[in-house]
């Protein structure tokens, strides 16, 4: 048994040197370059990064986190969730509640209650809002509420061995139900309007360019951090068990693994990632409403992942940037025709890039290798 070592695939390393360099570059871009270009380089200069661009990229980075989360559960574990929009929204609402309270008495009605409560006849804060003025408490809620929901929901669903499309559909049913619930004004979260008109975060005016930049940087770092974590997970044996579950769950069981624990762990983690993304999204975009829980919103997350390339981690991130970038650009340049382009894009990607954008890169690099060889 001499040569068994060369059988091991080259892993153990989280990233190769090139990979680390790319991560560092990304980190520097968001922490140094972007603030520089936005805050220091004067407006009108060719290299100035506009507030609009900062907001747009910030938003897309939040989406990228969702796509990454989707990749863990869908790409690697084979479970298509149509409920990630809900986790995203719950995270967003958690943050939004805090921001609403930060408005204080500066609202339209100069009341301690958020405006929508005033004109909908709430006389006091509903119980769910009790500690919403505490930043720490709300941040804990951002993680705990979606996390617990995912845990409980996942526990029952996985225990009942709900799989495939059945799982997708009940996640969708859950999300849809939550959306209807949040649309109701009686639920106490602002109904269709949701929360808007934020003024401050941690006492700092939210509209200040510096505040916005802080949020941007924070989002960027979170994305990078989540990426590294996800990479670590999928490269561990845990990650391979996930893939095995995707390929042949019964075989996994007959080998002695309990798929429930694995699925539940990755499902909950994925949900929490989305929730964090939601919490980062709300102060940057300035509104959270139940629209985020629509079926389309969740499907779109899956689409970013698919367009980028499933089970590649970096692919879904690229996908989120690509699709949302394209959407922003199309709506601007072809406001009346952009849906044609977007639709055609989705069709083209599926037909010609079954591995997504990442597959395209792979193709190129393997071609290069071939020609070199």
């Amino acid at each position, binding site marked *: 048994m001499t040569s068994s070592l060369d059988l091991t695939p080259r892993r153990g390393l989280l990233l190769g040197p090139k990979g680390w360099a790319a991560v560092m570059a990304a980190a520097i871009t968001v922490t140094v370059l972007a603030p520089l270009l936005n805050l220091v380089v004067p407006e009108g200069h060719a290299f100035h990064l506009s507030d609009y661009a900062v907001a747009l990229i910030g938003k897309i980075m939040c989406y990228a986190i969702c796509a990454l989360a989707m990749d863990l559960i869908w790409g690697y574990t084979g479970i298509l969730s149509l409920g990630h929009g809900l986790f995203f929204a719950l995270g967003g609402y958690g943050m939004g509640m805090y921001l609403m309270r930060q408005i204080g008495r500066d609202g339209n009605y100069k009341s301690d209650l958020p405006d929508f409560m005033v004109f909908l006849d709430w006389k006091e804060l509903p119980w769910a809002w009790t500690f919403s003025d505490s930043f720490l408490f709300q941040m804990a809620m951002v993680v705990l509420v979606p996390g617990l929901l995912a845990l409980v929901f996942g526990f029952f669903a996985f225990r009942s061995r709900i799989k495939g499309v059945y799982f997708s559909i009940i996640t969708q*049913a859950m999300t849809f139900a939550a959306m209807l619930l949040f649309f109701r004004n009686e639920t106490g979260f602002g109904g269709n309007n949701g929360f808007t008109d934020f003024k401050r975060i941690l006492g700092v005016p939210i509209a200040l360019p510096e505040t916005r930049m802080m949020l941007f940087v924070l989002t960027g770092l979170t994305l990078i951090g989540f990426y590294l974590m996800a990479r670590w997970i999928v490269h561990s044996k845990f990650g391979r068990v996930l893939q095995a579950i995707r390929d042949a769950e019964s075989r996994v069981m007959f080998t002695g693994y309990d798929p429930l624990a694995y699925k539940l762990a990755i499902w909950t983690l994925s949900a929490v990632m989305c929730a964090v993304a939601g919490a980062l999204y709300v102060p940057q975009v300035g509104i959270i409403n139940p629209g985020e829980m629509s079926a389309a919103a969740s499907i779109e997350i899956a689409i970013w992942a698919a367009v980028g390339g499933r089970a590649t981690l970096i692919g879904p991130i690229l996908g989120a940037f690509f699709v949302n970038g394209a959407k922003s650009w199309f709506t601007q340049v072809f406001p009346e025709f952009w849906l044609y382009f977007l*639709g055609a894009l989705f069709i083209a990607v599926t*037909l010609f890039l079954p591995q997504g954008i990442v597959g395209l890169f792979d193709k190129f690099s393997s071609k290069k290798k071939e020609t070199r060889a």
Partner: protein
Amino acid sequence: MALLAPVAHALTPDQAAAIAIGDTDSRIAALNKSAADADPELAPFVRALLDGEVKTADGKVYVVQGDKTAPDTAEDVINNNRMRGALEAALGALKLVSPDAKVRAEAVEELRKQSLDEAQLPLIEKAWAAESDAGLKSRLALMRATILVSSSDVAKRLAAAQALSASSEPAVKSLLQERLAPGVETDPAVRGALMTALDAVEGRLAWGERLGVLFTGASLGSILLLVALGLAITYGLMGVINMAHGELMMIGAYATFVVQNLFRQYLPGAFDWYIVLAIPVSFLVSALVGAALERSVIRWLYGRPLETLLATWGISLVLMQGVRSLFGAQNVAVENPAWLSGGVQVMSNLILPYNRLAIIAFAFLVLAGVTLMINRTRLGLFVRGVTQNRRMAACVGIPTARIDTYAFSLGAGIAGLAGCALSQVGNVGPDLGQGYIVDAFMVVVTGGVGQLAGTVYAALGLGVLNKFLEGFAGAVLAKIMVLVCIVIFIQKRPQGLFAMKGRSAEA
């Protein structure tokens, strides 16, 4: 200028002007005055007023019918609801004494809808006394009783109260309740009779309500069924997560719209029958679009269901925008043919609208067709075989490509039929499909993927459950509860209602 000449035999131009011009109070007074003469010649004029065929200019009244015209400066006579109500009442009263039993029946029907008061008693008594038709007579008797129950004569009140227990009118129920309110009716005998009558009426009404829930549930269920049937083929059988299913429905609805317009333009006489042509056309158009999609896109994606999700999502965006460019972003009007408008009155508080009845019947016809086609024909066998194992099907000699196209087109065509049906009850607009796609998937999945019978039960079950819950929880909460029920239900049956059991489920 034929100044009212043909109409106003008994109606002087001044009388007509008084009815047509002025504020509502004076117009109604004038109308009632003319009506009191019970002159049947008044009827055509009132009819014309109701139909908006009367114009005025300089205090003169013109009836614009056929080739009769009014000066350019003439303005429409505008009737508000109150005026219209009065006109209808007058017309009703006139009709009540008509020699034609059918006309009288209509009149009674119209009267039924109005709240009667003492003033109408003489009219009703007269009609009641003169009525020869037993059915009409008893209905008039009931109307008479509703007035007499408040009479000052105890005997009359008692008789009326007893008579009223035969009624099944919601209005009678509230009338009885009013009479029973403390201090209104004091005579114990009458009170007793009122109480008995109230019980009887309430019992009948409760039945109406229960049946109503069942019917609305069945109606919603049949819509869900139609919407889900096509998907049961494209998704359930073929495994294509067809997000464009809704848009194929939309295309069917627009096809119906186009057929309707063509009829309106070229065959106005047969307009009421446009739907008969619209059904096959909507099927064909959607099926053709489906065939084109299958040939160009879906074809390459078999065995990769999640990719079909992505591609069909793209397709749905394109189709929606396509319709927007072609027909505009607004909804378009699809009219119900006359024979599908209105409904049959089964009970006083239960009307079964014709279009909903038609859709229920239609849904079951389509279901029967699909079932036969899938389970009883060779094509159906091939479709099932091909969708299970495309490669092997080719290896037993089945032209799989063609079968795939047929199957997908069939699913698409049924979506088109659903669209045609939906055009009769809801919106026809570019977003039509979006509203149903989630429901469609819920139904197919709850029933069990690939299980036609499951789809049927799920559709009807969800429809009735939804309407039952709506009864006391309101539309939103009911829907939420239904969704929660689906989640719980799937826990119990992780493969849907009609789960495939045994080894073949894994295959």
